[in-house]
């Protein structure tokens, strides 16, 4: 699975959860760059991503995500 494909799928998930059709994520995107992505919506995004890819992130893994690139790398590793 390519990172660019994951990014497109994440765009859809983020747009749906945060109710914002203008969201376009990049590898360097962080919560500060996206309106509405904060500590309250973060876990909803994580569970939606886990459900979509049928994967499960570890607790420390979630806490260590620094940007969307880290998230994509983790999804890619789990879907191998």
């Amino acid at each position, binding site marked *: 699975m390519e990172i660019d494909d994951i990014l497109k799928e994440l765009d859809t998930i983020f747009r749906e959860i945060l109710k914002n059709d203008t969201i376009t994520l990049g590898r360097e995107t962080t919560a500060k760059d996206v309106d509405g992505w904060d*500590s309250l919506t973060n876990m909803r995004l994580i569970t939606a991503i886990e459900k979509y890819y049928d994967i499960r992130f570890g607790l420390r893994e979630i806490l260590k995500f620094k940007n969307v690139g880290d998230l994509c790398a983790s999804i890619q590793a789990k879907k191998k």
Partner: protein
Amino acid sequence: MTFLSLPFVVLFTCCLILFYSVKSNYQKIVLLLGSCVFVGYFNIAYLIIAALISAITFYWGRWIGAQKGENKRKRVFVGGILFLVLFLVSFKYINFIGENIAVLLGWFGIDWKGAITSVFFPLGISFYTFQALGYLIDVYWEEEEPERSLPDFMLYMLFFMKFLSGPIERAFDMLPQLKLEKRFDYDTVTYGLKLVLIGLMKKVIIADRLGPHLDTIFASVHDASGAQLLIAGLLYPIELYADFSGYTDMAIGGAMMFGYKLSPNFNRPFVAKTITDFWRRWHMSLSFWVRDYLYQPIAASKRYWGQWGIIYALVVTFIILGIWHGAGWNYVIYGLIQGLVISYEMLTVAYRNKVENRVGKSVFGVYSILRTYLLFAFSLLFFRISSLPEVGYMIRNLSFHVNSSFKELRLGMSDHECIVAGIAVVMLFVYEYFMSKKDLIKELGQCRKVVRWSIYYLFVILVFLFGQFGSEDFIYLQF
């Protein structure tokens, strides 16, 4: 020895002169010795306890880092966390726990006198214990390498500009700064000094002017009229803000004079439109601490509960934030209110957006700012008054009723004091508004000499003319 005392001014000045006079190898020793004098001046036992906890945390961090297997690391880490939590509980919460056990046993007819009592309360304990907890968690999460230098770590824990009331510093922000040599930089030192002056103005012109009058009302709520209770409740957030942000400005400014950058604690909290946003602007070093080390792990572990998982994490986190301030049910309720209001705000985002679109952005904005202020002011009644029956009385009696005349609304302040306090508060908000647009202190430094020095003299004259001196205490010292 608080920031406003003569011994502190002497200690600070001596440290500053020595710091920039000695070779860079000795700079940290000067600060560490200065910090030991500062803490030990209150009570030598405070220094011994703080130094012991700092040294134990240092070696415990190294012990976690030295473990090879994950299970072993986890065991050592949990041991460290338990040790620090038990330490904090035994000094700060043991009386509260003892009293509640006695009440519980009383329900079963057992007369227990609550034999557990704490000997004394070391100053700054809540701040440096949270700093130590954060450090061990960062080492365990591999966000931070275990520190190698004991003197650097001791200074990170004991640095006198932040020891008593924070900001609660993160290891990754402060420890790297301690590795660098500090040379005298005129601009940085004078910037720090200006920040100290701003903090001093907030403290002596606003907080200490309002403080005694509000203290009188809160100390005897039964003697005050409904309108006085209302005014006191509405003014208390301003007093607390001027006191704590004034202290923080002095702490940040003082540290800056030594070349160190401490974390910001406030960002115009009274323009927040929700309590959620408010906590991103108020006591930020504590609220970000609980967000990262409590809320995020709890919310992540309960994420399959959906919205309820987030609500659970919010309520637990804010109750702990509340009780961090002190051992009492009033602080539990203070935290609970924050957690419940933030949960409510999270569940009603769509509804609020709909209302905003209907009534217009500016009208809804003003309403939201007022609503947030009032909610916070209400919750602060539980923060300010430790007796729950007294808080209940105050809430039931808030009204516009005056006992004799509307002069009561001045809460015992003279006309002159009301005018000074009123103008100072407005000036503070105007200063903060412009400060959010551009750095006024930096701009001032670039003005012509005559303008610059006229303003400095004006500020100093204002402090001496309108400042209330005599009280050295800061509200957050008790935590």
